[in-house]
């Protein structure tokens, strides 16, 4: 019997060319990272169970899930609002463990949908990140409108995406994107194109530390 091994592959394994691209030679204006090894579960409160779902989430994560377009960071996960009565729980990949824990917590009060492989996570930062984002994202990302912790379900190139802003790094805003896996090759090209004039530093990181 042959050996069966189960390596993972990134949907960006062709599109993502690690390194410095585009204009200039110094520090890139935009840093773009694929975040690999993620776990992602969509949690949808059942009819009339919003409060129970929030309570259960608080118990599991130590924080209430957002009820408006925001992202809340907890110790073990980030909870991102994704629509009425629902949020995404975003965490490092841990086999089935994360999903199983959620399934246990939300049994009977919320429906879950495993999206760990359904989305590709991206991380955009750098001094020109917002200029590049303005080319493909219709959101107003101004500090006063989209501060740290803001989130949105929006459309990028006519497809759904979740966007949230995490803590600033080196005084620069950091934007996180979740896009559909099957679109990610195409969207990566588009985002990279938007960033090239500012200089692009492309790479990937693992969510698992």
């Amino acid at each position, binding site marked *: 019997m042959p050996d*069966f091994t189960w390596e993972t*592959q*990134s949907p960006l394994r*062709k599109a993502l060319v690690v390194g410095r691209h585009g204009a200039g030679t110094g520090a890139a204006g935009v840093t773009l990272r694929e975040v690999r090894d993620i776990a992602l579960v969509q949690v949808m409160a059942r*009819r009339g169970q919003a409060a129970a779902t929030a309570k259960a989430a608080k118990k599991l994560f130590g924080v209430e899930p957002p009820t408006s377009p925001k992202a809340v960071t907890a110790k073990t996960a980030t909870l991102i609002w994704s629509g009425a009565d629902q949020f995404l729980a975003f965490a490092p990949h841990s086999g089935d463990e994360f999903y199983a824990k959620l399934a246990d917590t939300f049994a009977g009060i919320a*429906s879950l*949908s495993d999206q760990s492989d*359904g989305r590709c996570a991206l991380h955009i930062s750098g001094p020109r990140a917002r200029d590049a984002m303005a080319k493909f994202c219709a959101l107003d990302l101004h500090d006063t409108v989209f501060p740290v912790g803001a989130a949105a379900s929006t459309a990028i190139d006519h497809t759904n995406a979740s966007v949230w802003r995490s803590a600033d790094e080196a005084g620069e805003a950091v934007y996180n994107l979740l896009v*559909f896996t*099957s679109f990610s090759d195409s969207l990566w090209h588009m985002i990279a194109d938007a960033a090239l004039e500012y200089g692009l530093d492309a790479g990937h990181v693992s969510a698992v530390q």
Partner: protein
Amino acid sequence: MSGYTETQPLGRTATADGRASPDRSSAANQSHRLANGGLIDRQAPLQFSFDGKSMSGFAGDTLASALVANGVKLVARSFKYHRPRGIMTAGSEEPSALVEMRTGARKEANTRATTQELYDGLVASSQNRWPSLRRDFMAVNSLLSPIFVAGFYYKTFMWPAKFWEKLYEPAIRRAAGLGETAHLPDPDHYDKAWAHCDVLVVGSGATGLSAALAAGRAGARVILCEEDSHIGGRLLSDGGEIDGMPALDWLRRVTDELASLPNVRIMARTAVFGVYDGGDFGALERVNDHVPQPAEHQVRQRLWRIATRRSVVGAGAIERPIVFPGNDRPGVMMAAAVRTYINRFAAMPGKRIAVFTNNDDGWRTVEAVVRAGGEIAAVIDPRGKVPAAYRALADRSGLRVLPGQVVDVKGGVDGVRSITVATGSSTQNIDTDCLAASGGWNPNVALSSFHRGRPTWREDIAAFVPGVSPPGMIMAGAANGDLSLDACLRTGHAAGAMAAAETGAKGKSGNAAKAADEAFAIQPLWQVKAKGKAFVDFQHDVTASDVTLAQREGFESVEHLKRYTTLGMATDQGKNSNVTGLAIMADARGRSIAETGTTIYRPPYAPVAIGALAGHHRDQNFHAWRLTPSHHWAAERGAVFVDTGLWKRAQWFPLAGETDWLQSVKREVLAVRNGVGFCDVSTLGKVDVRGADAGTFLDRVYINGFSKLAVGKARYGLMLREDGIVMDDGTTSRLAEDHYLTTTTTAKAGPVTQHLEFCRQVLWPELDVQLSSATDQWAQFSIAGPRTRDLLINLVDPSEDVSNEGFPFMGVREVMLRGGMKARLFRISFSGEMAFEIAVPARYGEAMARNIMKAGEPFGVVPYGTEALGVMRIEKGHVAGPELNGMTTASDLGLGGMASKKKDFIGRIMAGREALMAPDRQVVVGIKPVDKARRLRSGAHVVPKGAIPGPETDQGYLTSVCFSPVLDHWIALALVERGRERIGEIVRICDPLRNEDYEAEICSPVFYDPEGGRQRA
């Protein structure tokens, strides 16, 4: 009245007077360049060519100003009569001086010389002439002008009938158009971006700057857009004094302050072209039109969509021509443009300039000419006396002032030589090489009127001013009819402060700047009624007599006038001609101008390159693409891909030595039918349907029932639209009591999801149901063929039972695979063979493909593509896209029996309408050719044997066709009238498009294993 004031250089493009030029010779060649002044950089000479002739100018020049400086008068030919034309204006409203810019694939037509910034090496040529601008054979049209009047073509070219198509029209088409554009793909890049602000300020003259400052100081987020390369608007040309300092000093102070405000963004070279609903504006930034070509990674132009809460439009006013004979000759210019060329560009448009004005503003041009040391041939002011503010100037300079009208302009292709002036009953000729004319100012009401708001007439300034503007828009300054500098400063400031306050800004706007108020007085003069061609629309050669002809023929509405004469339809969109034309019409009809009204204003304000409107989305980037989890694996095996919707799917996997697609597809089909193959089916839409009422929900959505489906089972379902027509099909599996997984077709995943959400959120909010798309989560493969079970035994953990008993047809469950991977296994078949679909998380898609290959190696497993998938579904008689065409009912598809009679479902009632139940409907059947060597083609029609093909005998058509490797001949599915009653009948297949006509037999649509034993084995 303060005139133009010499000042310190502005930014990098200006230079102090008298500084030694590094290239005296280039300046020396510029015959009309003033020795001093202007906002040009004499340190930076630039070479350019026009019609192959090399010339020089300076940084800060436009192509037009450089041509003026070089004494070039003849620049273009008009559209219809090919009359020689020069430069008329100094702005984006230019109707005449259009040129072809650049060469090769970057060649572009109709660029306004007045907005094209000069760069070193610029190449421009004149257009719409042959063989040369000076000697244009098409100028013969001018001789035919007695016939080529407005609308003449509607009255002729009708006889003989054939000649229009064959002779007249081709000739007209060849002559049509202005410039020539490249016939090669545009090599430049474009992009689009969003911007957001509280207050958008359009225009950076005194009004716009005041507004931006007031709003910016108050703390509002402000974007200031200026179409010109420089901030300043008319201040750059007219100077004046503001707050006791020279206007250009004030300008620099204001721009410095604006630049210091973090909430203000200044966008030069950015033309706001349209206002759309909800305060959205479109703007075009000319990022790199001022260089030979964009640097690498840079775009040529960028389209901005600016979302605003309020807007202040300080877009100024546009000077309007007076209609008089010969008013189109090169050298006849707008008076304010003459001033711009002198003051801003240090280029003197004539050696001996005459000024014809009916308003005080024209006198500022007189002043500018005198100040720059130019010669005034005469000032013709039909009002009869010199305005008070200019009496001193007139006396000091000994001006020849004539209280009359210009009744003729004489000259040749090189422009004006003399004018004839009538004063009272006497006429006199005056030698001049440049006539500066001003008929008054039209406030720039375009943006205000793009939502169909009608401008209103204001008698005191003899102009239309904004009517009802779009919500949130405040018109200010000259654009609102406030034509003095002081009023611009005041109303701009007030508008900016008000706009900011309305968006909640709490800061202080400070005070408005002040200027000595200038008088504006005008006595309307639209048209000098004298013999000779007098132009209203310069580019389209619409004359005053064309307007009165239109009136005589009943084309009296301004919209009829426009359409009949083409007045205002040229590239300037009537900026120079509309108001004048309708004033002449009003006069001809004996109506007032106010009664006559304007035509509808339509965006864009200035033309926008189609490339910019497309941005990134061109060529391959037109639409996003979607890749399956095994895409790169398939690509590395040489798969040929096909676009299905946005997806790229493997169509077939050619092997070395295979020379055509059919060979590969046959091999793949036979490998499945005789052994085992697998195919990536991840593209099928997958929707998780969860909740206590999930089963009830599906019962209402599908024509068949799902609430009683056992956990661990799958069932094929069909859903209808409300109108009873089939919407989609697919299998639904029950994974748990409260969890179903529904699949849709690849094409309909989006619309079906939207429909299900509508049902959930709108129709049946009382049900406890949650929906989420799981399409991208799973890598799903169909493994099919008699050796499938053998392959699976190799693949699944030995503890798993995949026998027919342990895993029966339509069974579903989670299984453990060898190597410790969990997978979902569905025993469903599209091919008619024993088949399973196996799903693992998408990140294992390639590993799954490799492991299937590994597990199936002993059985000769092959990957197969969509083509083989299609062949097998046709052989099996399964309907797909071509049959689910949005016009067929369940019963047309042979699936009417699936409909439950025990429950209501969407589409049930409309499906029962008489015409949808009619016995003569076209229904799905199989078709096989009588001559087995005959190839069938989709789209061929079915008529009864022996009938004459025609609309009455047309009974249907072939929907899906393939070569069946198992039957070794072509087969088809077809929609045929009463088809199910006609099994065995020989019919005639007509395909006139492809010149084919043959006989075929109607048969069952199930060509392969009709008993279905193989899939249940």
